[in-house]
C-alpha cells in the first residue's frame, strides 16, 4: 500500500490535537502544572545556586576586601618581600593599577584586662595575626573602613589605636568561645596589650571590624609604622601587597601579573591573580556544594517527572476511549502519542520560562542587592547562563519523557477494547 502517512502529517495532527487539548483543558489544572514546573525549575537553579553562592560570596569578599585582583605575598621562607620599594614603585606607575595596599604581617599575643588580672587567674588573651597597614591606601584598595561595625576607622597618625577583628572578641564573634580563644569584655575604648617577641605596648581599641573574611576578622590592624616599630623591623620591606585594578577582569589581572613577573619580581615574591590566591578549601567547598545542590535538585526533578507522568497518565487513561476512536478512524498512533508530548513540552517550556524570568528578573538582582547574611559570607544567588540553560534542557527533556511514556502505555492498548471502554 502506498505510504501516505508522511511524517509531516503525523506532526501536523499531533500539533492539531495537542494544541486543542491544551486550549480546552481545565485552566486551573494547566495553571497548577505550570506552577509545579516553574517551582521545579526554581528548585533546580536556586538550591545549588544559593549553596554555590555562599562560597562565591566568600570568594568575592576575599577579593574585594582582602586580596584585590593581584595578591603579592612574601615567599614562605622569608619574612618580607625583598626589594619591596622597587615593586611598589612599579605598581605606582602601572596604568592598569587603580590602588594598592602594602601590609606588614606579624603574629603576637593580645591581652585584655591585664591591669586587674589576679596571679592565679588565666590571662584574658589570644594569639592573633597582626597587620600593619597604611589606613588610607588600605581603604582605597579594599574599603576596609566599610567593615567597621562599631567605633571609628584607623587614623594614619594614630600610633596608639588599633582595629580588632570581630572574631577575636567574645561579644562579636560568630564562633563560640569554647571552640576558639576569644578576648572577653573587650570593646571599643578597651586597652589591650600587644606583645611581639619581647616587645609589648598598650593600645586602645578604636574600632571593631567585620567583613566576613577570616584574614580580617581574626586579625588586629594598626598603622604600618607602629607594627614595624613593635616587631623591631628595620627596613622598608613589606609582607603582602593587595592590588586593585582599574579593569577587574581575569585577563587584566593576568596581564599585570605577567608584567611584574617580567620585571623579575617573581623571584622575591609570590604574585597571584585573585583566582589563584583563593584558599583551596573554598574551591573544594564550592565543588562540594555544587554536587550537593545538584543532588538535592535532582530529587525535585524526579518529583516533577512523576507529577507530570501521573497528570498525563490520568489525562490519557480518562481519554482512552477517544484515543481508541482516533485510532479506529485511522489516526496514526505516533501522532496521538506526540500530542501528549506536545502538552508536556508546553507545560515545561512555559514553566521554565516563568522560572527564568523569576531567576534573572527578580531573584538574582534581589540577592545581589540584599545578600543573605550568613555568619561567614554574604550569600548571593549564582545562576550562570550556560548551566542554567542546561537545566532548562534537562527539565524539558525529563518532562517530554514523562509525558511520552504514559501516552505510549495508553495508546498501545487494543483499539477495539479502547473504543468499547473495556
Amino acid at each position: 500500500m502506498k505510504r501516505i502517512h508522511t511524517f509531516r502529517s503525523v506532526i501536523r495532527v499531533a500539533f492539531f490535537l495537542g494544541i486543542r487539548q491544551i486550549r480546552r483543558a481545565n485552566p486551573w489544572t494547566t495553571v497548577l502544572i505550570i506552577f509545579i514546573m516553574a517551582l521545579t525549575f526554581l528548585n533546580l537553579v536556586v538550591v545549588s545556586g544559593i549553596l554555590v553562592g555562599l562560597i562565591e560570596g566568600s570568594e568575592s569578599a576575599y577579593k574585594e576586601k582582602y586580596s584585590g585582583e593581584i595578591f603579592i605575598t612574601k615567599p614562605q621562607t622569608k619574612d618580607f618581600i625583598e626589594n619591596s620599594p622597587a615593586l611598589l614603585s612599579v605598581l605606582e606607575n602601572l596604568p592598569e593599577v587603580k590602588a594598592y595596599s602594602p601590609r606588614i604581617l606579624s603574629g603576637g599575643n593580645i591581652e585584655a584586662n591585664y591591669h586587674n588580672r589576679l596571679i592565679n587567674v588565666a590571662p584574658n588573651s589570644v594569639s592573633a595575626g597582626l597587620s600593619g597597614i597604611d589606613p588610607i591606601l588600605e581603604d582605597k584598595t579594599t574599603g576596609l573602613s566599610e567593615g567597621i561595625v562599631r567605633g571609628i576607622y584607623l587614623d594614619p597618625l594614630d600610633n596608639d589605636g588599633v582595629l580588632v577583628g570581630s572574631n577575636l572578641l567574645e561579644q562579636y564573634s560568630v564562633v563560640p568561645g569554647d571552640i576558639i580563644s576569644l578576648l572577653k569584655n573587650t570593646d571599643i575604648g578597651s586597652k589591650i596589650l600587644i606583645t611581639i617577641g619581647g616587645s609589648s605596648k598598650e593600645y586602645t581599641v578604636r574600632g571593631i571590624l567585620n567583613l566576613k573574611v577570616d584574614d580580617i576578622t581574626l586579625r588586629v590592624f594598626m598603622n604600618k609604622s607602629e607594627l614595624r616599630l613593635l616587631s623591631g623591623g628595620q627596613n622598608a620591606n613589606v609582607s603582602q601587597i593587595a592590588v586593585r585594578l582599574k579593569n577587574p577582569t581575569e585577563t587584566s589581572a593576568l596581564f599585570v601579573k605577567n608584567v611584574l613577573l617580567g620585571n623579575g619580581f617573581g623571584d622575591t615574591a609570590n604574585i597571584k591573580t585573585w583566582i589563584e590566591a583563593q584558599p583551596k578549601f573554598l574551591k573544594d567547598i564550592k565543588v562540594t556544594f555544587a554536587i550537593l545542590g545538584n543532588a538535592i535538585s535532582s530529587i525535585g526533578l524526579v518529583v516533577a517527572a512523576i507529577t507530570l507522568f501521573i497528570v498525563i497518565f490520568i489525562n490519557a487513561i480518562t481519554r482512552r476511549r477517544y484515543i481508541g476512536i482516533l485510532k479506529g478512524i485511522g489516526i496514526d498512533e505516533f501522532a496521538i502519542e506526540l500530542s501528549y508530548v506536545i502538552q508536556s513540552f508546553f507545560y515545561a517550556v512555559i514553566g521554565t520560562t516563568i522560572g527564568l524570568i523569576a531567576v534573572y528578573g527578580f531573584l538574582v538582582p534581589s540577592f545581589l542587592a540584599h545578600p543573605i547574611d550568613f555568619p561567614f559570607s554574604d550569600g548571593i544567588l549564582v545562576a550562570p547562563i550556560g548551566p542554567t540553560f542546561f537545566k532548562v534542557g534537562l527539565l524539558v527533556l525529563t518532562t517530554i519523557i514523562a509525558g511520552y511514556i504514559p501516552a505510549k502505555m495508553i495508546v498501545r492498548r487494543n483499539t477495539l477494547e479502547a473504543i468499547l471502554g473495556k
Partner: protein
Amino acid sequence: MTPMIRAQNITKTYVSKGIETRVLRGISLHIKKGEFVAIMGRSGAGKSTLLYQLSLLDTPTEGKIFLSDEDTSNLSNEERTRFRLHRLGYVFQDYALIPDLTAIENVMIPLLMQGMSQKKAEEKSLKSLERVELSHRKDNLPSELSGGEQQRAAIARAVVHTPDIIFADEPTANLDTVSSKAVLDLLLELHKKGQTIVMVTHEEEYGALAERIIRLSDGVVVS
C-alpha cells in the same frame, strides 16, 4: 462484479479466564459495491462482532476478509490503520466525537492525517457538514450539540474522505425517533449516491430500509 466485501469462513473466539466463547462460527458473506446491508439479530447474536471484523477494528480468529478484493488478513497493524483512514468510514452507536474538538475539527482530522492542508481540510469538512445540515454548528463542541446533531457530525466525519464503505454500528440506538429518521435519511441519501453501507441494527423498522438484511443467530448467518 467483484464484491466490495468478501468474508470467508470467519470465526471469532474470545478467551476469558481460560473459558472460550465462540461468538462467530464460520461466517461467509459477500457485499456488493453500492449495496446497503443491514446486519440484524438478537442481542448476543454476534452482529457487532461481525461488524468489527469486517471493518478491520478487530482481527478474526480464523477466516479471511477481502475488502475491494484486497486480502486484509496479512495486513500489519499500521497498514490496517492506514486502510481504515483511507478506505473506511465509521458511525458509532454513541457518536464517538472527540470532546476537545469542535464539530468541524472532528470532521477535519482524518483529512489532516491523510496529508491535506488545513485550509483544504476545513473547506471540505464544511461541505460535509453542509450535507448533514450542521454547518451552522461547526464551531460547537460535541457537548454543545444534541444527540442527533452529534450523530450527524459523526456521519459527516465518516463520509468526508469519500470512503469505499461506511460501517454504522447501531447508529440510531441513542436517538429519539425524529433524530433516528434524520440519520437514516442521511444514510439512504448516501446509498442513493452509490455509497456502500453496512449497518448493524436491532430495529426491524430501520433494518427494513436497507437493500438487504443479513440475519445472525448464535454466530451464524441464518438468512
